[in-house]
């Protein structure tokens, strides 16, 4: 009897370990995460418009239909990324996601404080190689460290009413994301 109670106790403890391990492994194991869903429509290091969510299809669940969105699926292995996004009339934001869907940085047009949001995205190693003087002279250029080599940059522009959606899309169409090869 005691022996069986011990077996059960062992099973419960081991079950806890299995539970924690599977929860922690899920982000790596997920095959239908945002990055995988966007990979077929988003070429690497290029800004493309995300299809607007409709009642029939939605690439990503829980997207805000009041926003036009564009995505840059980045890969920093060939060099840093320069992002340039003109801000739209109403509200524009840029959100950076790791390969595993963690939103590690987000900024909106007001925080950027300019007519365009300009950012450099680098791996911590690439950032360390930026010459110090350059870092200072380019103080108005924001440098973001990406925790992963690949990931997603998502631009969102609000259309406060449906009639303004073409303008929001147009603003995003001018956004650019391109790789700066290492010298």
């Amino acid at each position, binding site marked *: 009897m005691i*022996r*069986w109670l011990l*077996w*059960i106790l*062992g*099973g*419960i403890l*081991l*079950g*806890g*370990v*299995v*539970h924690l391990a*599977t*929860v922690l492994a*899920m*982000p790596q194991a*997920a095959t*239908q*995460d*945002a990055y*995988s*869903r966007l990979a077929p429509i988003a070429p690497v290091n290029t800004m493309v418009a995300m299809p607007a*969510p409709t*009642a*029939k299809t*939605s690439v*990503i*669940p*829980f*997207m*805000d*239909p*009041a*926003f036009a969105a564009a995505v840059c699926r980045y890969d920093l292995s060939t060099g840093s990324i320069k992002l340039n996004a003109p801000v739209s009339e*109403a*509200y524009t*934001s840029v*959100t*950076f*996601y790791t390969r*595993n*869907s*963690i*939103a*590690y*940085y*987000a*900024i*909106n047009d*007001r*925080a950027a404080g300019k007519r365009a949001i300009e950012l450099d995205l680098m791996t911590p190693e690439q950032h360390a190689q930026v010459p110090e003087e350059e870092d200072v002279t380019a103080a108005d250029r924001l440098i973001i460290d990406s*925790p992963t080599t690949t990931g997603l940059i*998502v631009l*969102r522009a*609000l*259309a*406060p*009413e*449906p009639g303004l959606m073409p303008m929001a899309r147009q603003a995003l169409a001018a956004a650019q994301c391109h790789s700066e090869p290492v010298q």
Partner: protein
Amino acid sequence: MRLLFGSFFTFLLAAMIGLGATWFTLTRGVAFGSLTIGAWTAWPKSGTQDIDPYAHASIARDGELPIGIGDGVAFYAHADDTGQEFDGRCTFALSGMTPPARYWTVTLYNLEGGLVANAIDRHGFTSGEILRNVDGRFTITVAPQARPGNWLPTGGIEHFVLVWRLYDTPIGVAATTMKEGPMPAIERKGCS
């Protein structure tokens, strides 16, 4: 023989408990650090690097792109103010005030996060298009059939989720002093 049986039993039990608990927490959307105002709940940490492992697992599994904290915060409601789950065949009134934000949007989704088909192709409202009373307050009627004013169609589906997103807002950034955030009340008005 007894050892073999015992260890087999233990491993089976461990797999059942472990995988069952994982499935349960991910489908139920267990996450820590929630911020609840009335019927609305947000997980501001999900938009940061400090996202908890449960929220991270469920976001990766569902393929979501959570709203970053520098962008805004999203409040979810699955039920009205009395705690009764939403039913798309019933009528609900959303009224009152919203916390300070440069813009807000409210969107109706099915449980999978998809938009719901309806005759007027409306899936939500933004703060820029909503019809307001003279005092700045507003009422949104969530109903299967057409209503005057701000009508948000349910498409008659059984269960739905409302997501209230605040953009460029202090809410969620200073998450501990949350008494000032008034969120719209959700009142059930009857069923068709």
